């Protein structure tokens, strides 16, 4: 028993262990997702996170310890974001052909994303710090955290809300778009990227390259639009 304990302490200190845990959990989650016939509710990111959180809580492991291993996966988010230039370039003729429609749709979506989050949280009695934390929830995490701080929110809570928004959009977005009868991949991609940033984009890319390109574009443009517009809206709403 003491030997097992020692092996555990040794394993838990290795970055390799939590890196492997991340990959195994995601592989298992993807297997479940595919086996279910790609049911949106069985989103692989959601299942993988749930499994890993359960393991960490069950073994009393700190998030910081886990992240020492998982950071190698996390690091690749940057290069993956840069790589979105490739689908964007491949679909550039489509983007140019509907540039005005994209700009208007994106700005509308961006304003609705911030105002509806603030409005619902306010009506339901959330504190000012929580409202500021949720306002930029549709924007990619690094920008959202900076905006949240500027508005008086809690940046690390914003990061969690951003991820939750991404997963909610990836799960419910395709269902809503089907209900609305929207079959155009450009509109579907643009909506997913505007509402749920990189996680929506990752989902869109799995389904269709046009949707993926428009989603990546929307993610980048929404980060820019929200960073500029939200602080102005905030002053208009709450008087700074």
């Amino acid at each position, binding site marked *: 028993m003491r030997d097992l304990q020692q092996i555990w302490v040794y394993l838990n200190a290795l970055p390799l262990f939590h890196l492997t845990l991340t990959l195994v*959990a995601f592989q298992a989650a993807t297997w479940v997702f595919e086996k279910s016939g790609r049911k949106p509710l069985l989103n692989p990111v959601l299942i993988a996170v749930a499994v890993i959180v359960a393991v960490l809580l069950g073994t009393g492991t700190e998030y910081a310890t886990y992240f020492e291993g998982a950071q190698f996966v996390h690091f*690749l988010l940057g290069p993956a974001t*840069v790589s979105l230039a490739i689908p964007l370039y491949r679909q550039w003729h489509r983007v140019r052909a509907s540039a005005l*429609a994209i700009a208007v749709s994106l700005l509308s*979506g961006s304003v609705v994303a911030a105002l*509806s989050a603030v409005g619902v949280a306010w009506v339901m009695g959330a504190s000012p710090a929580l409202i500021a934390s949720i306002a930029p929830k549709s924007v990619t995490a690094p920008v959202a955290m900076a905006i949240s701080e500027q508005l008086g929110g809690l940046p*690390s*809570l914003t990061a969690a809300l951003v991820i939750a*928004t991404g997963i909610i959009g990836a799960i419910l977005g395709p269902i809503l778009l089907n209900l609305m009868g929207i079959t155009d991949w450009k509109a579907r991609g643009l909506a997913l990227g505007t509402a749920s940033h990189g996680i929506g984009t990752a989902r869109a890319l799995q389904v269709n390259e046009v949707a993926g390109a428009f989603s*990546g574009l929307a993610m980048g443009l929404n980060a820019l639009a929200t960073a500029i517009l939200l602080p102005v809206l905030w002053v208009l709403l709450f008087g700074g």
Partner: protein
Amino acid sequence: MIAYLTLILGCQLAGEVSVTLLGLPVPGPVLGMVLLFVILLIRGGIPEGLGQTADGLLRAMSLLFVPAGTGIMMHFTLLGQALLPLGAALIVSTLATIAVTAGMMRLLAKEAGDA
């Protein structure tokens, strides 16, 4: 492959440095994406190896959010206290954003002439 990974990392680095120096309101990797896109426009095409490297990274993109997503465990107490307002705001707002963005795009974008 290594050459193209270097190009991608180089664009990200240039993006990060520019954002820091100029105080721009976008993340470094997003500016890196713009930079790589401009390089492709100037070059007038995607080198085969670059396409393969980028497609490989993008296929794994969902996985890359798992470590950050696991960070939600640090906020369980706070999230538990405000579960209803935050949960309702997240769901309503995400659905409203998707509906408005896609609805507006359908209204404005013409299907005609699009292959």
